[in-house]
C-alpha cells in the first residue's frame, strides 16, 4: 500500500472517530432510529479503517502487538459492551463466560482481539436473525478458543474452503484477512501460533484460537 494512501486512511479514521463521538453524544441526548443506524455504520467504517491500517503496518513489518494478561470475563463483557449496536441488535448478543472463570486471565493483545471479535459479531448480526453468542473455552493441547456463533445460513462453501473472501457473503474480505493476521501474530516462545477456524453447525461458527 502506498504511504500516502495509508496516511489518508489514518486521517479518515481519526475523522470517523470524531464523528462516532458526536453521534454517540447526539444519540445519548435525543435517541432515534436514524441516529442509531448512522452510529452503527460509522463505527463499522471506523473499524474497517483500523483493520486496513493494521494490514498496512504488517506489510511494513511494523504491526506491534501488546501482549498482556486480561481477565477473560471482563474482556468478553467489554467486547460486547463496547459494540455500540443499533437499538434492537444489542439484545441479540449473548456472552457465555461459564468457562472463563476457570481460565482466569490470558495473555493476548486486547485491542486487536477485541476488534477481531467485534467484527465477527457484527457480521453474524448482519447475516442472521436470532441470537449471536460469544464464548470462550480452553483449547485442548493448550490455548484458548473464542467462538462467535449465529443461527443463520452458515458460511458459503468457498469461504469454508479457505478462499479469501468475507466472513460471510459478499464484501471485501477485509475482516477475515485481519482476523487471520492478528491470530498469526500471537505466538509463544515454544513455537505455537494463533489461528482462525470457520465451520457451519446450525449456523456459522467463527473461532479465534490463541496460543
Amino acid at each position: 500500500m502506498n504511504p500516502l494512501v495509508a496516511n489518508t486512511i489514518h486521517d479518515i479514521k481519526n475523522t470517523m472517530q470524531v464523528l462516532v463521538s458526536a453521534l454517540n453524544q447526539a444519540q445519548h441526548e435525543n435517541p432515534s432510529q436514524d441516529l442509531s443506524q448512522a452510529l452503527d455504520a460509522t463505527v463499522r467504517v471506523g473499524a474497517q479503517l483500523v483493520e486496513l491500517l493494521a494490514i498496512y503496518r504488517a506489510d511494513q513489518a511494523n504491526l506491534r502487538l501488546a501482549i498482556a494478561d486480561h481477565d477473560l470475563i471482563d474482556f468478553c463483557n467489554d467486547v460486547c459492551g463496547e459494540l455500540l449496536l443499533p437499538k434492537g441488535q444489542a439484545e441479540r448478543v449473548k456472552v457465555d463466560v461459564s468457562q472463563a472463570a476457570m481460565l482466569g486471565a490470558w495473555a493476548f493483545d486486547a485491542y486487536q482481539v477485541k476488534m477481531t471479535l467485534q467484527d465477527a459479531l457484527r457480521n453474524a448480526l448482519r447475516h442472521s436473525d436470532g441470537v449471536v453468542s460469544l464464548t470462550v473455552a480452553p483449547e485442548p493441547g493448550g490455548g484458548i478458543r473464542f467462538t462467535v456463533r449465529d443461527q443463520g445460513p452458515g458460511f458459503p462453501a468457498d469461504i469454508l474452503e479457505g478462499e479469501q473472501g468475507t466472513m460471510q457473503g459478499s464484501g471485501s474480505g477485509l475482516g477475515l484477512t485481519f482476523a487471520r493476521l492478528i491470530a498469526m501474530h500471537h505466538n509463544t516462545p515454544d513455537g505455537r501460533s494463533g489461528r482462525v477456524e470457520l465451520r457451519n453447525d446450525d449456523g456459522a461458527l467463527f473461532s479465534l484460537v490463541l496460543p
Partner: protein
Amino acid sequence: MALQESPQLPDLSKYQALLIDDIPEMRSSSRIQLNDIGIQQCDTARNIKEAIDRISEKRYDLILSDYNLGQGADGQQLLELLRRRNQLPLTTVYLLITGETGYEQVSTAAEYAPDDYLIKPYTSYTLHTRLARIIDKKQTLKPVYQHLGPSGNKQKALEACDAVMASNPRYILDLTRIKGDVLLELKRFDEALALYQAMLAQRSTPWAEVGKARALIALEKEEEATAHLNRTLDAYPNYLAAYDLQAKLLEKTDKVAAQKLVERALKVAPSTQRQRQVGSLALENKDFTRAEEAFKRAVEKDKTGFFKSHDDYAGLAKSRMEQGKVDEALATIKEMGQSFRPSPELTVRQASVESLIHSKAGNEAAAKAALKKALDAGGSAASTDLSTSLELASACLAAGDEEHAQQIIHDVAADFQDNAAMMARVQAVYAEAGREEEGAAIIEQTRKEMIALNNNAVAMAQAGDLDKAAAMLDEAANRLQNNAQIALNAAILALRCVQQKGGSDELFAKAHRYIVQARRINPNIARLEDAMRLYAKLAPSTAPAMPTL
C-alpha cells in the same frame, strides 16, 4: 445483553482527580466523562510541570493522563518520574489515554506500568467499568501491598498473597507475579524458578517468561537464560522488560550486540533513557556518529527538562569531540550550563569535559585552565558521582596531571570495589589513555589496602582494642559510601562492641546505619543476614527497627 456485572463503582463524589492533557478540548471532554461517572472534584494540568506541581501539593485518588503531553514528554515518562520520586501512592489509580497507534508502548512498558490504559475514542461506560475494576483490584490486593515497598516484611507479603489467592482466585495471575518478584528479592531463586515454570506449564505470558530468565540468571545459568530470552523476544517482540534483561547480559560479554539490541528496543518505544543507553554503548563501541545522534535526540526530545541528565550533554560533547568537531563539542558544554540549575557538580562535569575537549584538540593551556576550574569546584571530593569523577580523571590524564588522576582512581576504586560493572568503568579510564597496566596497578594497590584495612581492624579487635578498630572502620565506612564490605564489617564490629561492653543508643544507631548502608549497596553480600539477625537479637525495642528481609 447478558453482561456480567462489573464490580460496583464506589461513591466517587469525594474522589480527587487530576486530568493531564495539553489539548484544551480534550481536557473538557474528559472532564465531562469524569462528571458522568460521578467524579466532581477534578483539577487539570496542561503539561508535566503543572502536573508535578499539583501532585506535590495534593494527594489524588485518580490521575488520568493523555499519552502525548507535548514538549517531547509523555504520560508514561511522567508515571516513571513520579514512581521514582515516590510521589505516587499504590492506592492512586493512574490511567493513561492513548491513540490506537501508541497503546502498545504503554502496555509493554518495562518497569512502571500504569494501572490501565484507555484507547481513544472511549465512552463513559468504558471509563466506568475500567475504574471499577482497578478500584476492586487495589482493594483486594491491599493486604499484599501493605507489605511491599523497601521497608515491608516480604515473608508477610508472601503469606498475604497465598491468603488472597485462596479467598479471591480472580487475581491469581497478579498475585503469582508479585510472589515471583518477592521470592527473587528474598533470594529464594529455586522457588522462584519453580513458580515461573509451573505458570508456564499452563500458559505462556511475557512476565513469567522474563521472570524465569531472571531466576535462571540468579542461579548463574546465564547461557540458558540468554537462549530463553531470545525465544521470548521472538514471541513477544514488543516486551521491553525482555530487551532490558537481555541487554544487561550482553553488556557483560558483547557491547556491540548490546547496542544492537537496545536499538531494537528503541524502535518499540522511544525513550530518553534508552537513547542515553544507546549513546553510552555507542561511545564505548567507538561508534561516534551513532552516539552523537542518540545523545542529540535525548537532549532535544525533552523540552521540559525533567528527563534529561548531565550524562546526555557530556556524552553528546564527547561524541562530537571524538569526531574532531571541537567547536560543536564546546558549544554543547555551554548549552549544558544553560540547561540545568547551577551546582558544583555541574561545574565539575562541564569543566572536566571541556578540559578533555581542549586536550584532544591540542590546546594545552585551555585544557589546564578548565581542569583547574574542575578541581577548584571540588571535583576530587568523595561526594562527586562516579561518571563525573571518571571524566575528571580522564581529563587529568589528558592534561598531564598524574597526581590527581591517581588520587581520583584510587578513591573510586576503594569506594566501588565490590561492584564489577563500576570497576570495569574505572579500569577503562587508564585503558583508554593507552596505559592499562598503570591503571591496573593502582586498582590492585587499592584492593590490597582495603584488605589490609579490614585485616588490621580484625587483628586490633581480636587483640582487645575494640575502640581503635571501630574508629578505623567508622572512618572508612563514612568515607566510602559505596563499599558494602566495609559498611558490613563496621556494623559487625559495632555489634561486637555491644556484646563485649554492653549496648548504648549510639552503638545501636551506628550498627543500624551501617547495616542499612551495606544492604543498599549490595543486598546479596555474604553475612548480611547474620548481621541483621544479630542486631535483631541484641537491639532493645527502643533501638531503630531493622527492616526484615
